[in-house]
């Protein structure tokens, strides 16, 4: 097979080669920039410049230069904004571009040839590669197996069905990354499913996650199931909501959104060093070198933690903390000071002003990472109690409204589309009255889960009220939002809910509004609400979009 050492050597040679060519590439970028006319828009010239920067974004990290990719990506984003306007950059923008150029030059100059460990560190974590979305159902009752397959597929899972054990065993040899739903009893063997799993687990270093489905609930069977690596044991009839809960916890290996850290330090060399250390640990980092420039990145980046230097010209770290703490949205943000200061009195004084902790420079990269991580985690946990709805784990009413304000502001600034939707379960009171509140809660949970799974990670879902949900879809126009939500509506109406051994279905109505027609958060919200009202009146179980309001002055016509 492949000789790993030889491979590393080849990769290293390629990295060296790439690094050697970087100054020349940078020169080309600089020339492309200098050749652009100042007084008019040059589509082709700008396109070329953009493509060259883009190519650095797309290649740097592959050769072990992660920082290069990141700096180029920021630069590229900025160029894209200018390209959308199609106007020759003004003096301010030219200044910005020159700053990006010099950052790029700095990174290129600092580019040492990366060693092998750096190349390996750049590899994505295991869970990003093997994202498990596949479920094997092993069940000898074909009707029940089909039902499971259909229901699970509504939640976005790929499902393979096996009617007998030998067929399943063969398939398992090719799939390391599945969740197994295993019937316990097979024809001729009361514990056939459990025995088969025990055999498979013996051959594995990492046990296969398996959930047993059983016709009987007996302790000895449960014990055997646990011994076969069973994570859950569900007796028939199976409550689909319950089953999905279990599967969700097993498959939630999706990489979490990275923690956002804002570094405020006037030394550019240090900020880029800290940024690199934290980024290597999987965090998203934004840096500010002049504390007076902190507001824009603060509001736009919405950091989870701020790392600030104590001594900075213009505004020292303690003053900075005081200012930040006076902003409503940042009352609870952890602020950690980094300083060469080891005077305890001064440290305590800083803490009184709103700093949460002091880290003394020079700090070991590992210490920096673990200090930052533990503070961010704790603060997010606390914040989640404040902003999350306890039944569904979705954002609560206040949190989703705050988020809408921010998203609308951002969409307007960037000129990107944005849609807002209100979703309301139809005749929910009847569900509660007929089957009781616990069943109603399950219906709410199943819709919240469906929304979370079917929308993109960047979309935001909140529980707006009892059976009402709010969805923010950034970068999405109204028509697309309607299409996506209508598909979810269709699938939700197909879901079967279980109550007292009986099945029933529920539907929802939905109103959508597009930010291009309603330009502030309040108007957008009202419009979505009106559209929802129309959907209800048009017979429920449908998605409606609110058109733009009539242009004022129309009454003169």
């Amino acid at each position: 097979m492949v000789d790993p050492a030889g491979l590393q050597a080849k990769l290293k040679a390629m990295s060296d080669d790439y690094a050697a060519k970087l100054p020349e590439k940078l020169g080309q970028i600089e020339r492309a920039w200098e050749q652009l006319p100042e007084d008019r828009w040059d589509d082709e010239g700008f396109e070329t410049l953009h493509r060259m920067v883009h190519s650095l974004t797309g290649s740097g990290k592959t050769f072990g230069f992660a920082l290069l990719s990141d700096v180029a990506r920021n630069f590229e984003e900025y160029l894209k904004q200018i390209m959308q306007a199609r106007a020759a950059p003004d003096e301010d923008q030219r200044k910005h571009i020159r700053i990006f150029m010099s950052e790029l030059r700095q990174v290129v100059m600092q580019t040492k040839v990366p060693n092998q460990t750096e190349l390996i560190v750049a590899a994505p974590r295991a869970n990003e590669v093997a994202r498990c979305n596949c479920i094997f159902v092993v069940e000898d009752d074909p009707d029940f197996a089909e039902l499971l397959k259909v229901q699970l597929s509504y939640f976005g899972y790929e499902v393979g069905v096996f009617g007998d054990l030998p067929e399943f065993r063969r398939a398992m040899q090719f799939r390391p990354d599945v969740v197994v739903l295993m019937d316990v009893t097979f024809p001729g063997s009361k514990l056939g499913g459990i025995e088969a799993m025990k055999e498979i687990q013996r051959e594995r270093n990492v046990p296969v996650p398996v959930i047993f489905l059983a016709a009987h609930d007996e302790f000895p069977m449960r014990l055997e199931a646990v011994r076969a690596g069973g994570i859950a044991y569900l007796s028939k009839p199976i409550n689909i909501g319950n089953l999905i809960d279990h599967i969700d916890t097993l498959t939630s290996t999706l990489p979490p959104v990275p923690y956002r850290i804002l570094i405020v330090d006037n030394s550019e060399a240090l900020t880029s060093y800290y940024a690199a250390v934290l980024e290597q640990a999987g965090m998203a980092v934004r840096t500010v070198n002049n504390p007076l420039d902190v507001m824009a990145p603060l509001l736009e980046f919405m950091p989870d933690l701020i790392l600030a230097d104590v001594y900075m010209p213009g505004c020292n770290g303690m003053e900075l903390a005081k200012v930040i703490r006076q902003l409503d949205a940042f009352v609870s943000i952890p602020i950690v000071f980094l300083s060469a200061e080891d005077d305890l009195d001064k440290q305590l004084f800083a803490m009184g002003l709103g700093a949460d902790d002091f880290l003394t420079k020079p700090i070991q990269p590992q210490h920096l990472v673990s200090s930052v991580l533990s503070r961010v985690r704790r603060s997010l946990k606390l914040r989640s109690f404040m902003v999350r709805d306890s039944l569904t784990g979705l954002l609560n009413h206040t949190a989703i409204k705050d988020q809408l304000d921010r998203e609308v502001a951002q969409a307007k600034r960037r000129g990107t589309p944005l849609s807002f939707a209100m979703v309301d379960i139809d005749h929910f009171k009847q569900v509660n009255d007929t089957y009781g509140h616990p069943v109603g809660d399950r219906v709410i949970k199943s819709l919240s889960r469906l929304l979370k799974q079917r929308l993109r990670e960047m979309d935001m879902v909140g529980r707006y009220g009892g059976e009402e949900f709010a969805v923010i879809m950034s970068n999405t126009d109204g028509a697309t939002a309607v299409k996506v939500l209508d598909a979810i509506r269709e699938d939700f109406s197909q879901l079967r809910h279980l109550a007292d051994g009986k099945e029933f279905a529920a539907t929802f109505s939905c109103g959508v509004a597009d930010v291009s027609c309603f330009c502030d958060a309040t108007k957008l919200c009202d419009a979505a609400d009106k559209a929802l009202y129309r959907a209800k009146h048009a017979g429920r179980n449908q998605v409606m979009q609110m058109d733009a309001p009539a242009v004022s002055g129309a009454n003169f016509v």
Partner: protein
Amino acid sequence: MTDKLTRILYVEDEPDIQTVARLALETLGGFTVEICSSGNEALARAPAFDPQLILLDVMMPVMDGPTTLGKLRELPQFAFTPVVFMTAKVQPGEVAGYKDISAVDVIPKPFDPMTLSGQVQAIWDRCHG
């Protein structure tokens, strides 16, 4: 069982990326890789090479990835060949857009040479699972 993935066509204009991708896919993945530097070259050479899977860079001069995909799809031979976009633009919305025009998946750039062939194999398995 379905066919084993062996022949991959990679369309990419950057010589550096071409080399490292060849190493990753041939040495590490054991695939046979044909590399084309432009959409036009791909259209000319794909029929004879008869790839089972095509990797397409999105941003290329003259003819970009999506256009190349459109032209490939016009050839009956490639009407259903799985095509994967390689791009540094990984806005989720854009990914959905690429899938709308019949790409089976998107591999974000910069890719990791050590795991590229695994990603490609996983996509192939998913298409033929």
